[in-house]
């Protein structure tokens, strides 16, 4: 069905899938409690940030430990424009992405010569250093107490008693859909092919006519814009921006989410976002269920993060999304081929090769 007529074009396909998902998620959000809608918004914020980073690292091969800083840029932009200046929400969200993109441009240009661990180190410095700016400029940026962020009021046609948390969830669902459509199109376009070419072999890519430095900076800018939008939604949901909310732990958490979810895949970003919001809760439930000593239970969620990361990397090097795809392929080949044959061979192929071939598919779910 998906190869018929106009649906053959990737853009149309992506838009259709996105619209369907928006409608479904809006309906689901209607059944959720106020608190669960709030969690949907948090998950959406992380999904967008993780998607950008997943693209940068998985598809373009650049490791960034600094995307928490780009989230901070987007979050503070939202705080300043939405709460101080009362600008319209859509404009505020777009500008948050733009300012983070500018920060990404500066960072990308500055780090253009760096590769691998040196790039990681430079972005790590960014993650640690950028939030400190808020303490330097306390009068405008709120210092350690931070800046409050007003929850966005629901648009008037929804009625006066529309739950603001549900409205927030709807806004964030739309943002996720828009981001995913744009990223999916980027990935299936020539830019996406160029990203993968640069990741796999810079010299070969350069010989093929790709401007490697420009390509890498573009990837940085796109991923920073995603992080900025994610930070903006996070700020709107929690109602506060302050430096303690954007530590190095956040940058590492987003990268962890991208890796566990499936580096280079958009579906993996969804897994990553869900995990980042729910893993601390599960860790707490676990420690309460086991009635652990308080010294252990307070730090259990960090330990559990590590355990899950190790387990997933060992079992599914392509992340949860890679594992899902493998399962899907195994099921499909079992049903389509005869006894034995392709089924067992599919399961035996190391999952590490999956994203290279699958990335071009531009999954939106």
């Amino acid at each position, binding site marked *: 069905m998906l190869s018929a007529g106009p649906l053959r074009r990737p853009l149309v396909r992506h838009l259709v899938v996105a619209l369907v998902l928006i409608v479904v998620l809006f309906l689901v959000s209607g059944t959720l409690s106020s608190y669960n809608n709030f969690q949907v918004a948090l998950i959406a914020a992380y999904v967008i940030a993780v998607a950008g980073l997943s693209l940068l690292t998985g598809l373009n091969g650049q490791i960034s430990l600094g995307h928490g800083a780009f989230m901070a840029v987007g979050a503070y932009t939202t705080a300043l424009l939405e709460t101080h200046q009362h600008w319209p929400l859509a404009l505020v969200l777009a500008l948050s992405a733009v300012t983070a993109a500018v920060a990404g441009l500066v960072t990308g240009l500055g780090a253009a010569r760096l590769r691998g661990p040196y790039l990681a180190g430079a972005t790590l410095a960014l993650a640690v250093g950028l939030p400190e700016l808020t303490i330097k400029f306390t009068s405008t940026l709120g210092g350690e*107490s931070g800046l409050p962020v007003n929850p966005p009021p629901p648009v008037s046609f929804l009625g006066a008693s529309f739950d603001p948390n549900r409205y927030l969830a709807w806004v964030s669902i739309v943002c996720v859909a828009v981001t995913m459509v744009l990223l999916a199109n980027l990935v299936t376009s020539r830019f996406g092919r160029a990203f993968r070419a640069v990741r796999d072999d810079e010299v070969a890519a350069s010989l093929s006519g790709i401007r490697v430095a420009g390509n890498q900076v573009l990837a940085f800018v796109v991923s920073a814009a995603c992080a900025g939008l994610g930070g903006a939604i*996070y700020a709107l949901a929690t109602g506060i921006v302050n430096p303690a909310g954007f530590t190095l732990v956040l940058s590492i958490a987003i990268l962890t989410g991208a890796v566990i979810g499936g580096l280079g895949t958009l579906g993996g970003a969804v897994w990553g976002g869900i995990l980042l919001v729910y893993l601390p809760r*599960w860790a707490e439930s676990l*420690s309460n269920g086991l009635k652990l000593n*308080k010294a252990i239970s307070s730090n259990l969620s960090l330990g559990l993060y590590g*355990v899950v990361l190790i387990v997933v990397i060992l079992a599914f090097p392509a992340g949860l999304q890679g594992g899902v795809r493998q399962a899907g392929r195994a099921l499909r080949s079992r049903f389509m081929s005869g006894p034995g044959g392709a089924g067992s061979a599919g399961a035996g192929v190391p999952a590490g090769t999956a994203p290279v071939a699958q990335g071009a598919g531009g999954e939106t779910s």
Partner: protein
Amino acid sequence: MNIRPNRSAWRVAAVVAVIGLVAAACGGSSSKSTSSSTANTSGTNTASAPGITATTITIGSHQPLTGPAAPGYSEIAPASTAMFKYVNAHGGVYGRSINYIYEDDGYNPANTATVVRKLVLQDNVFAIFDGLGTPTHEAVLSFLQTEKVPDLFVASGCDCWDNPTQDPETFGFQTDYTIEAKVLASYEQAHYKGEKVGYLFQNDDFGQGGVKGFDQEIPSSDVVSRQSYDATAAGLANGLGNQVSAIKAAGAKVVMLDTIPVATALTLLAAAEIGYSPVWIVSSVGGDPPTLAGLLSSISKGKAGASLENGVISASYLPSFSDTTNPWITLFKSIHDQYDASEPWDGNTVFGMAVAYTFVQTMHAAGRNPTRADVVKALETDGGSFTGPGLVPLGYSTTHHNGYVGEQIGVVENGAFNMSGPVYRTTDSSGTPVTTYSGTQPAPPSTF
């Protein structure tokens, strides 16, 4: 052809392990809580408000159980829990058991926003109780007003909780930083007048509120150095040597400290390293002797110990944990030994029990079947005349929501905090002098 190792067995085991972990996690409850089944229902209790049933009252809190603020402060909620268990075991409040759910926010306001929303929207707590931290609690202040949830006894001395017009649900508890600073500074003027003074303060509302109070009593010509630090992992990672050296270089003989426990410990260690021993006058926030002793020892890896804190001057609005002659301390210690014995016994424990006791008093005053508004009204009407473990009255009225109005001075000596002399009271404003309070503290009631 390569022989690939058989990974499928590993994968199966890993999947099973992860599913097992997740399943176990989903099984438990999502937070720490106490509840007791010894409720005497008289039959006339009703579910008069969210979080109140005929047999229980559920309250919630955000606490720094992990992170830079955890040393010392993580003991407060277990101490409150112990007091609630004691009360529940003795009939509860109008026969209702108090169920206290406290969540870790790691002193990160974004986490505070998340956990408080969970407590209010999902756990349906009746009130938020003893939310700890100034930047953390500020993150949820407007949310709680919008949701009309009583926000009782914020564990922070910021004077920003005293704002009944804008934040009618919120009540402070401890003596606010400015009042405390005025008391400490007036003691400094009484005993070290004319000496050069240095300030070392946390770079936020806590420290800046303290400086405001110090400056109301200490002439600015006496202040030779003002140093600050940020209460972040980065700000404290290298110790406070720079700040302490600057104060020593300026020649200060007295140093006023508005510091959290870990910063106080770092200050004392840095001063010991450079051979600097001024008179230290520290806020009650960072002056609890057992907490400091533990931090001094752990930060210096055993090289320094409690001896560094001898002679440090501080103040308190509650009796000292080491004052075994005080009947409230005797009572609290027995509750600690029975219900909270795995936690240390120190000023944080006394604080946790005192604020829990005040909550029990409040629920008694609010009536058998209170609404949320009834609790706020009870505090405004009766709270100012509550007597209890405090050395001074609480400042509650229809126009003020600040907590204790003064403090008594004490000195740290060999692990104990010895309080003596008059009890002082004042207000935040520069026009009010520091005066003595002459009321006496009553003994604890036999039943409550």
